[in-house]
């Protein structure tokens, strides 16, 4: 299988801020690749380089066989991109938006119209097709923006934080749409801040921080690497902390962490809910009183803590803000 995206050693600096610090990745055709990282990690900059919006300071990248700098013009006919902020014209109707995009891909007037209707149907926007976008909900705008990225049946699709800012229902709706799409064989590069999103959609995930890939693997591989699920519990009596540790050793698949101040015990486990029930039974047997208990899935913060040793700090400015600051 050929590679749809190959990037090597991409560097992009804004003043003395390095947005991309030697970023590289390979995405085989027909697969979904997730770029997971916090604001400011360089995800948006990476997408902008791969979609020809930004020229890298150094490094090379090819998408669908075209160099993103040298063959930018030809490449644009083969990609579709949908950004973090729905790039639709709010004074046009949904249909007018998609027809305009079709004409700008030079599909011709009639095919542009037909394609617009087809996509509006597919994205559940047929009823709103002739309404001005200003009246659309956030979820509808995102769907229209995504439809805009698909007008020319692109070989490679880029989605930059497609569900950021959407309510949970709209998010799940959009996931369904994306899943259906990639089932048809489109290569997709997706950026996200949500572990859950990468988990559900991506075949392979790259965790990025400070403009670099710091971990790469399938969702399962990454979760194994960071310890998977864990039981977190708080005991009533600090004297029970060590007893709890020894009682739960047999369930742990990694090191048990005890925080004496907070009276917290964290136990990495393999088979979450089963382990939780059994562990509670064991604690009960031992007569250890538990104030609070829960099963936690790894989050982006856990990934970061485990991979970088620092929290996924809320960056002071995300990389798109930096892009704005420094591209003047």
């Amino acid at each position, binding site marked *: 299988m050929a590679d749809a995206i190959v990037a090597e050693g991409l560097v992009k600096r804004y003043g003395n801020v390095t947005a991309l610090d030697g970023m590289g990745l390979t995405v085989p055709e027909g697969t979904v690749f997730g770029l997971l990282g916090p604001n400011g990690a360089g995800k948006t900059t990476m997408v902008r380089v791969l979609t020809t919006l930004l020229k890298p300071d150094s490094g090379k990248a090819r998408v669908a066989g075209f160099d993103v700098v040298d063959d930018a013009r030809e490449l644009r006919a083969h990609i579709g991109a949908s*950004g973090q*902020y729905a*790039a639709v014209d709010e*004074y046009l109707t949904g249909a*007018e938006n998609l027809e*305009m995009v079709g004409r700008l891909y030079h599909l011709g007037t009639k095919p542009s119209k037909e394609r617009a209707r087809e996509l509006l149907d597919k994205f559940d926007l047929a009823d709103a097709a002739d309404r*001005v976008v200003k009246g659309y909900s956030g979820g509808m705008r995102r769907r229209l923006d995504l439809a*805009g990225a698909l007008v020319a049946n692109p070989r490679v699709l880029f989605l930059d934080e497609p569900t950021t800012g959407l309510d949970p229902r709209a998010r799940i709706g959009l996931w369904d749409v994306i899943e259906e799409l990639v089932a048809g064989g489109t290569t997709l590069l997706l950026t996200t801040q949500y572990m859950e999103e990468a988990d559900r959609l991506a075949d392979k995930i790259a965790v990025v921080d400070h403009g670099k890939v710091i971990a790469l693997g399938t969702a399962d591989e990454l979760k194994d690497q960071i310890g998977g699920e864990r039981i977190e519990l708080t005991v009533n009596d600090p004297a029970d902390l060590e007893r709890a540790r020894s009682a739960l050793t047999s369930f742990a698949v990694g090191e048990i962490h005890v925080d004496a101040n907070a009276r917290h015990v964290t136990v990495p486990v393999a088979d979450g809910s089963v382990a939780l029930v059994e562990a509670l039974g064991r604690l009960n047997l031992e007569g250890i009183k538990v104030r609070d208990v829960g099963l936690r899935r790894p989050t982006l913060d856990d990934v970061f803590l485990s991979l970088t040793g620092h929290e996924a700090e809320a960056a002071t400015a995300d990389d798109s803000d930096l892009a704005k600051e420094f*591209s*003047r």
Partner: protein
Amino acid sequence: MNAVQMAAVDGITIAKRNVIKIKRVPDLLVFTVMSPIMFVLLFAFVFGSVIDMPGISYREFLIAGIFTQTVIFGGTWTGLGLVEDLQKGIIDRFRSLPMSPAAVLIGRTTSDIIINVVSLVVMSLTGLLVGWRIRTSFPEALAGFALLLLFAYAFSWVMAVVGLWIRTPEVYNNATFMVIFPLTFIANTFVDSSRFPTVLRVIADWNPVSALTQAARELFGNTNPAMVVSDAWPMQNPIVATLLWTALILIVFVPFSIHRYQKAVSR
């Protein structure tokens, strides 16, 4: 399709999109048209009551100046439209499409001509009501309007560069005042610039806005032999001077704004 054809075809697509916005947000056009009416009335009655022009009524002298000022203000819509497109992220979409890199600018400057045409019609009617008259032939008058629109079109490209540079609507609005007020006031637009102190007079003589205003006055027949016209070359040959300025502005600012556009990134 070669590059020029593509620029034209894509430019028309973008211009259509901009025209739809004018239709859907009519307030925009209403206020664009109201302000020249206000200017005609304010200047005609406030300045007109204290300024005497030799051999011609101040109102007749004034209207060509107001025309010039208004079409130049019209150019600011170009920059504002681009700033809004940048803010809303749609420039990112356009830039990732296989379209002509000049199309967004061509489309924008073209659709903004419509705003200026409407402004000119409304201002002419208002002018006629307060005593302005065309004293030349129909073709000459038509040439006068055409020259105003042509210069305004070129000026749109200047404001495109300003808009792509500044990128925030609020700052852009202030920046346009910094450009437009000196340009339209240190000129023969509203007063007789031959009575300016030397430095201002020289600036006014060579200000393209003065050439345009003088050309419009001549083409509409709003001049009088009793009026002093500067000996400076652009004031003696205002039509040629305006055409040269228009060409020069386009030669410099079309490539410059396309270059800025290609580097511009939304947000």
